C-alpha cells in the first residue's frame, strides 16, 4: 500500500533522486568517529543542528503558554514553570539548549577554523556560517527578555544602550528594537517576541538551508 502511494507520487514528481542523494552519498573515513575517535570534532556541527531542532520544538510548545504582554508574561512563565505538567522540563530544555547551541556552534567554528576548511571553494559557506552565528546570538539576546523578570529587563536595558551607541544609526536601531527611544516596556516585549519567534527563525531557516545545500554540493573538506 505504502509502496503503491510512493510509486504514484514518484511517477509524477520523480522524488527518488532527491532522497537517494541524501541517503547514498559517501561519508569519508576521516570524519567518522567509529574509525578515528578524534573525528568527534566533526560532530559539533551536527550536534548544533540537533540542539537547534530541540530549540524549535521546545519553543513551539512554550508559545502554547507564553503571553507576550507586560502584565502577563512573567505570570505565564511562572505558571508554565510551576504548574504545567513537564513545563519545567520544556522550559529547562529551551533554557539550557540556548547555551548549548552557543557552545556547540563555538566549537564547530573552531573546528572549521583550525582544519582550514573555510578555504577555497568553501568561502561562501563560511560566510553563511558566521551569519548563522550572528542570528543565534540575536536569538539569545531577544529570548533573554521574554520571561520579563528582573535580570531580563536590566540585561536588555544594557544591551539596548550598547546598540544605541552605534554611530549615526544608534538611535534608529534602538527605536526599531525597543519601539521607543527611552522606554523599555510593552512595545519592547512584543517586538522582541516577534523578532525571536518570527523574524530570526525565518532568517535562520534560510541560512541553514543554504549551509546544508552547500555542504552537499561541495562535500566535506578532505583530511589534513
Amino acid at each position: 500500500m505504502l509502496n503503491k502511494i510512493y510509486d504514484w507520487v514518484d511517477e509524477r514528481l520523480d522524488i527518488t533522486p532527491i532522497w537517494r542523494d541524501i541517503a547514498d552519498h559517501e561519508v569519508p573515513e576521516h570524519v567518522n568517529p567509529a574509525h578515528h575517535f578524534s573525528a568527534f570534532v566533526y560532530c559539533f556541527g551536527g550536534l548544533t543542528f540537533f540542539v537547534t531542532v530541540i530549540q524549535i520544538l521546545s519553543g513551539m510548545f512554550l508559545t502554547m503558554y507564553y503571553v507576550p504582554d507586560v502584565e502577563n508574561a512573567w505570570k505565564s512563565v511562572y505558571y508554565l514553570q510551576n504548574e504545567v505538567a513537564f513545563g519545567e522540563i520544556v522550559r529547562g530544555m529551551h533554557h539550557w539548549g540556548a547555551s548549548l547551541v552557543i557552545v556547540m556552534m563555538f566549537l564547530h567554528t573552531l573546528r572549521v577554523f583550525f582544519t582550514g576548511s573555510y578555504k577555497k571553494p568553501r568561502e561562501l559557506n563560511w560566510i553563511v556560517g558566521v551569519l548563522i552565528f550572528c542570528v543565534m546570538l540575536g536569538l539569545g539576546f531577544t529570548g533573554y527578555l521574554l520571561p520579563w523578570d528582573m535580570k531580563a529587563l536590566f540585561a536588555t536595558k544594557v544591551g539596548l544602550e550598547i546598540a544605541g551607541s552605534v554611530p549615526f544609526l544608534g538611535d534608529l536601531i534602538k527605536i526599531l528594537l525597543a519601539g521607543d527611544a527611552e522606554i523599555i516596556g510593552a512595545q519592547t516585549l512584543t517586538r522582541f517576541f516577534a523578532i525571536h519567534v518570527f523574524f530570526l527563525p525565518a532568517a535562520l531557516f534560510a541560512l541553514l538551508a543554504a549551509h546544508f545545500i552547500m555542504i552537499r554540493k561541495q562535500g566535506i573538506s578532505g583530511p589534513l
Partner: protein
Amino acid sequence: MQRGKGMKFVGDSRIKANNRMVNQPKDYSEYPGKTEAFWPDFLLKEWMVGAVFLIGYLLLTVAHPSPLEGPADPTNASYIPLPDWYFLFLYQLLKYTYASGPYNIIGAIVVPGLAIGALILMPFLDKGPERRPSKRPIPTALMILAVAAMFYLTWESVVNHDWEAAKAQGAITDKHLGLLPDVEIDETAPGYEIYQAQASCVGCHGGDLAGAGGPMLLGNELTAEEVAEVIQNGRGGMPAGAFQGTDEELQQLAEFIAGLKEAE
C-alpha cells in the same frame, strides 16, 4: 525523460535535459579509506553521539531548573544588571578604562565589529592553500589569542560579580505571587501620610508598603520602639538618618508601621 522511473507528462513542453546525470553522489575516491554511505551506516553513528549528548543535556535540565527572577520592575534603581553568560566577555570589556566612558565606542562597537568583520572575511584574509594550523601561524595565533581573551574576560566578569547579592536582588517574593500578608492599611492614619511623604521610605519599601528594593513592611514583627530605632539608626542595607521630620512625626510613623500586623 531518462530520470527516475521514467516520467511521462501529458503535453510535456519541457526541453529534454542534456545527458548529464543529476544528483550523482560525489565520489570520495580521492580520499582512500573506509568511506561509507550516509544512510544508514554513518547516520547510526551520529545518532549514537547524539544520544550520549542528549543524556548530558537532559541531566543538566533535570539537575538545574531554569532560573526565574521576580517580575520586571523598571522603577528599581538598585538592580545590578548582568547579561547571559555568553555575552559576559563583551560586558566585561566595557569596564576597562579605554573601552568605556568617553571611549565607550571602542568597547561597544569597534572591537566587536572588528572581530566579527575579521571572522566573516577570514577566507579572503587567509588565502593561502595551506590548511594545517602549524603551516599558517598568523591566523592560528590570532584565533588562539582571541579565544584566550574571551575566556579571560568571561572569567574576570564572573569572579568580579557578587553572585550572592545578585541572587537576593532578583528573588521572587510573596508580593509577586499575590500572597501579601492579610494586613489592613489605615490610609487615614497620620503615620500613613508621613510615610508617603518620605521619598526615602517609599523608594525602598514601596508605595504599597510591600517592598521594592528593600523589604516588605506589611506583617513585620517589630514594636513601635524598635521601628523608631531602625528608622533612626538604620539596619542592614538601610542607611541611618534618612528620615526627615520631627520626633513627633517619627513616633507617629513608627506606630503606624508597627501596626501593620497580620490579622489573627
